[in-house]
């Protein structure tokens, strides 16, 4: 069973969300991926206005429409527009089919503006995904490092949160999140560097690691290789490739009546 935590239909080709999503499924079938979590539409606004947020999420809803048996969706929110973000959460998650929250680079995760979003998502047991990178050349001004997510996780110690990309610079990211046990890490979106998964399993335990691809910007193959080519036990691979994500998602899937 392979579930992809981190997928964007926009990189798969196709002029519409429906066409892009059909390609996601076609290539997913080829690579053995059963389910996808999708977020973000065609744009890449780093600090989206409320209207842009809505456009993103509408495109994702269109993509999801025919594929609810193969895909889940996360709502894209911007803490710089907190009231609008909470309303968007209600529209897409509380009253809609989405099951998680995607936070990107509009504001660092350490900022307290995120707290109401986290609280609302936690109340519904929605999945919370926060992008992080820890770039050698420096991050964007609103881009979180794993240390920012640790601050957030400390303020919400009972809420599971996913540290996107493990910070990219994974040797730093793994160490940063190691002691904060309500944080899981996402393997997506960095080069298929040998040793990443081995260190993550050694330091965090396989239960805190979730596979994602960050396709279409990344190759499904290069990202699957991180787990499938690693030297960790097969049981650990199964956890990372799908079982951990399924376990995290089951409460909200069950509450919404989705069958798995």
């Amino acid at each position: 069973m392979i579930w992809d935590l981190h997928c964007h239909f926009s990189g798969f080709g196709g002029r519409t969300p429906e066409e892009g999503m059909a390609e996601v499924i076609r290539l997913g079938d080829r690579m053995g991926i059963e389910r996808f979590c999708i977020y973000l539409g065609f744009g890449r606004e780093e600090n989206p206005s409320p209207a842009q947020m809505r456009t993103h999420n509408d495109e994702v809803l269109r993509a999801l429409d025919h594929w609810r048996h193969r895909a889940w969706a996360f709502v894209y929110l911007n803490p710089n527009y907190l009231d609008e973000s909470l309303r968007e959460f209600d529209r897409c998650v509380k009253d809609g089919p989405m099951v998680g929250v995607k936070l990107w680079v509009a504001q660092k995760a350490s900022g307290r503006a995120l707290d109401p979003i986290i609280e609302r998502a936690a109340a519904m047991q929605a999945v919370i995904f926060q992008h992080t990178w820890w770039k050698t050349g420096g991050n964007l001004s609103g881009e979180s490092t794993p240390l920012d997510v640790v601050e957030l996780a400390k303020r919400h110690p009972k809420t599971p949160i996913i540290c996107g990309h493990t910070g990219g610079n994974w040797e730093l990211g793994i160490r940063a999140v190691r002691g904060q046990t309500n944080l899981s890490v996402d393997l997506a979106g960095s080069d298929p560097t040998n040793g990443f998964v081995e260190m993550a399993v050694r330091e965090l335990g396989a239960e805190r690691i979730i596979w994602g691809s960050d396709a279409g910007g990344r190759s499904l193959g290069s990202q699957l290789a991180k787990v499938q080519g690693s030297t960790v036990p097969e049981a650990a691979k199964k956890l990372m490739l799908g079982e951990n994500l399924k376990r995290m998602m089951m409460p909200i899937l069950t509450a919404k009546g989705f069958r798995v």
Partner: protein
Amino acid sequence: MIDTNVYVSRWPFRRLPGDETAVLVQKLRAAGVVEAWAGSFDAVLHRDMGAVNLRVTEECRKNGNGLLKPVGCVNPMLPDWREDLRRCQERYGMKAIRLHPNYHGYRLEDAVTRELLSAAAERGLFVQIAAQMEDERTQHSLLRVAPVPLQMLPELTKTIQRLRVQVLNHPRPVSWERVYWDFCAVEGVRGLTELLKGSVADSLCFGSYYPFFLWESAALKMKEAGAEGAVLEKLRAGTARVLMGGTGR
């Protein structure tokens, strides 16, 4: 299958699963690789290149029963680099050299690059150029190295007779005369698929960049692209044989 891009010895910044040569050989054999062109991570930063080339030759001789073909390195910024080139061919019987211009501090535009490439071509050696070893965003903060700019390469292959070049670890291969590529750094879900639609397809070789990258990455990209039949055979070995034999484009 021929893997045109593997390394022996140690990456300077971390131990890698597979950086023991016996383990590397075991991995390649299990994957169906019958020949692998092996450079040395030592070549990236070491200055005693004579010792580096001797060790890579010995490692390839001791491990794998001929599976590993040693690829030496020449750094034209070192004194008497021509002697390293001579030894690669005459003493070690190498068919290729692998260059690291960005770690060694020269550009393809420099006169010494033309001298080196010309000397390699005269000896019938083909030249691998490693365009980048690691994503700039994840490099050690005290050793940041930008990718090799390749704009000059078409001019060099056009004007240096018999020069054959393979670019390694580059994300965007293009169709240039007598220039070959691997696709280990090609990304995006449609990355290899799009390349296979164009004329550059004839210059793509399988190269895993193992053990820095997972070996499975390049292999799964071929599956993702739906490569099969003659196209797959060229990727797996056919184009590499042309490159090694010097009978190609």
